[in-house]
């Protein structure tokens, strides 16, 4: 199961070796310069990171029956959802959203990954779905807060990073585009987590319909100002093929995916797929669906970028907001103690002082003028 195609890091290692070879050649060509050796840094980083292991938290959200569990199983080629109890329609009328975490440790070519899947059963299932995304935003904020406290604590050796790195949102393919509940959910979350919208169950759409739906969804995402996860621009010195692939990838969003838990026989091979009377849908066939693109993007090339954006953008926003709120609260209530030492902010004070002085002087001048005028009137009267 693990002996499959290259993973992200295996490729990275190969590339590093290549670079190392070229660099060492360069150095040997120039007789004046001696080989220093810091070109092995990438190798060292690689070794250390393999030893440390990686972690990744993925959230899946969408209505019940969209194929979320099947897709997660297909992505990571495991069965995460054994013995799952599904509710009846009657029980779901007033269902509230729960948050369930599954954590697994998987390993491939010596690289360990601690994968956490955060599931949101009950989202969008009740008859009244007002604010059904609130438990989800609360959960994400909680994880940020937890990390914030840990980071500001005294002992920072073993911080557990439970922040959500990516949220896969499943859009039903039965409609004409985004529905109000989709829009509201994404707007509530787009500044807290990287959202990747997916078109679920794409085997009910012909290629034309898929194209139309994707255009529609992209249009509506722009219209409503939803900030979904953007792939980083590739460097200008990458080769044309890479740039072409990157461009194709970006034009393909949102990905139309199909998942499957079963293996079927197609064209003489055993593949993951769905068996219909009229044909076989192969999950890993690029002309059938975008599953391969999603997997490559999510796991093989952009996993680390997702983590970086979460740390650098979403978490920092949260942190800044948190601190601002705390300082404004402190200003009002001096008795409250803050767990975090806050430096005295000098610059803003000086400015305000100056302003106050100016205003005082103005006031004095106005007062004097008033007095003079009063005096004059008094004299005239006399």
């Amino acid at each position, binding site marked *: 199961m693990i002996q499959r195609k290259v993973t992200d890091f295996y490729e990275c290692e190969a590339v590093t070796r290549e670079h190392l070879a070229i660099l060492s050649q360069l150095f040997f060509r120039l007789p004046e310069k001696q080989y220093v050796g810091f070109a092995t840094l990438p190798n060292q980083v690689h070794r250390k990171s393999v030893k440390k292991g990686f972690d990744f938290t993925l959230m899946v959200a969408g*209505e*019940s*029956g*969209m*194929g979320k569990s099947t897709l997660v199983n297909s992505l990571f080629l495991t069965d995460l959802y054994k013995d799952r109890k*599904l509710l*009846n*329609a*009657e029980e*779901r*009328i007033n*269902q509230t959203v729960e948050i369930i975490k599954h954590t697994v440790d998987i390993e491939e070519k010596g690289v360990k990954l601690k994968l956490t899947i955060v599931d949101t059963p009950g989202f969008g*299932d*009740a*008859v*009244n*779905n*007002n604010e059904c995304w609130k438990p989800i935003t609360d959960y994400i904020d909680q994880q940020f807060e937890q990390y914030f406290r840990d980071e500001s604590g005294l002992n920072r050796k073993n911080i557990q990073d439970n922040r959500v790195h990516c949220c896969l949102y499943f859009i*039903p*393919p*039965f*409609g*004409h*585009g*985004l*529905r*109000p*509940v989709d829009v*509201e959910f994404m707007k509530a979350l787009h500044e807290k987590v990287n959202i990747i919208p997916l078109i679920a*169950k794409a*085997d*009910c759409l*012909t*290629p034309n319909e898929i194209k139309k739906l994707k255009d529609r969804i992209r249009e509506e995402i722009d219209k409503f100002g939803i900030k979904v996860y953007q792939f980083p621009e590739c460097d200008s010195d990458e080769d044309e093929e890479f740039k072409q692939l990157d461009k194709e990838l970006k034009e393909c969003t949102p990905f139309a995916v199909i998942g499957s838990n079963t293996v079927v026989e197609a064209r003489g091979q055993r593949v993951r797929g*769905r*068996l*219909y*009377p*009229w*044909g*076989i*849908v*192969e999950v890993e066939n690029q*002309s*059938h669906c975008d599953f391969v693109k999603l997997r490559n993007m999510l796991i093989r090339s952009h996993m680390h970028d997702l983590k970086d954006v979460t740390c650098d953008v979403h978490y920092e926003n949260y942190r800044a907001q948190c601190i601002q709120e705390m300082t404004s609260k402190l200003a009002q209530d001096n008795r409250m103690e803050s767990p975090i030492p806050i430096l005295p902010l000098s610059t803003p004070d000086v400015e305000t002082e100056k302003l106050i002085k100016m205003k005082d002087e103005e006031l004095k001048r106005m007062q004097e003028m008033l007095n003079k005028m009063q005096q004059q009137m008094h004299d005239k009267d006399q």
Partner: protein
Amino acid sequence: MAANEIDVFANEEKRTLDLGGHVGFDSLPDQLVSKSVAQGFCFNILCVGETGIGKSTLMNTLFNTTFENEEASHYESDVQLRPQTYDLQESNVNLKLTIVHTVGFGDQINKEESYKPILEYIDAQFERYLEEELKIRRSLFNCHDTRIHICLYFIAPTGHSLKSLDLVTMKKLDSKVNLIPVIAKADTVSKSELDKLKIKIMSELVSNGVQIYQFPTEDEAVAEINSSMNTHLPFAVVGSVDDVKVGNKMVKARLYPWGSVQVENENHCDFVKLREMLLRVNMEDLREQTHARHYELYRRCKLEEMGFKDTDPDSQSFSLQETYEAKRKEFLLDLQRKEEEMRQMFVNKVKETEAELKEKEKELHERFEQLKRMHQEEKRNLEEKRRELEEEMNAFNRRKVAAETLMGQALQGCSQPFKKDKDKKKANLNKCD
């Protein structure tokens, strides 16, 4: 009246007689048929389902034509119903078809009120028919019957079971209309999943007491086919109006990279079964059920609400006429009372306004008087000042005259000895100023 006559008939024995020859009343059904064909038929379908689930496409496929329908948006604030009526003709049979679509169903975030517009629409059609029935001059055979004969409920193929909204809505609709659930977009469900899904849906419907329409099995001619169809409910349908070349024929199908789903292929979906049941076998039964069961239920509830009863507590039958008259009198009394009330209110209001106006007038008067007084005072002040000024002027003039005469006298006499006097007088004059 009628009850007594029926009693008389019950006592007599009913006898069957044999006929000696061919009389000919066996053509009665044919006469009925030719009459109804001449009249034309009318059929009303209500399609309930989420936006984009394939209602319009299925209608187009069923009737093999294109009904104009614009794509609905997902952002309607509440559910609306859009009826459209078409005249179709097939081998000299005229059909007046009305298709009602729900717009915006299932799109709102809070769907608790979603079923209400649908219920209201169905009730409104029943009400219309009831009104026509209760008229004095009625033309039932001419009137366009808009009562819904069948409601197709489109279930989204999520793969697990019904959605909560589906359950709630179907429970509300099952007693008002013939309800047939269909699984829409069935080309996303594989064969094994489909069987499981059908079983799950039926069990959920049964356990929640939802009564869907069962094809009738009393009539021998169609009993067999109907009872076998009953086991295939809910039908999993796929709709398409595009023609695709399969083999060497052009058939209606959906073309995918991995194959094509043929709409009329029984292995692929249940479209053919639906068409068979709906249009070819049971259409008349649907109309009958609507009239005999659902409409009668509505009528009974409505009339009971209005206070009509078939028998009163003493089990003596009421005549509709008497009850109606009593009701009418009540109603008129009510009206009169209301009129009186309104008149009273009107009179009161007028009085109030009058009183207000009078007060305002008084105020204005007062102000006027006040201003007048002020004006007069000022006038007096001014007069006084004027008089004072005039007196001063007169005094000044007199002195002036006196001084001039004195000067004249002084000039007439010697000037020098009187210089001192002059100076004195001048000084006097100066003092006087």
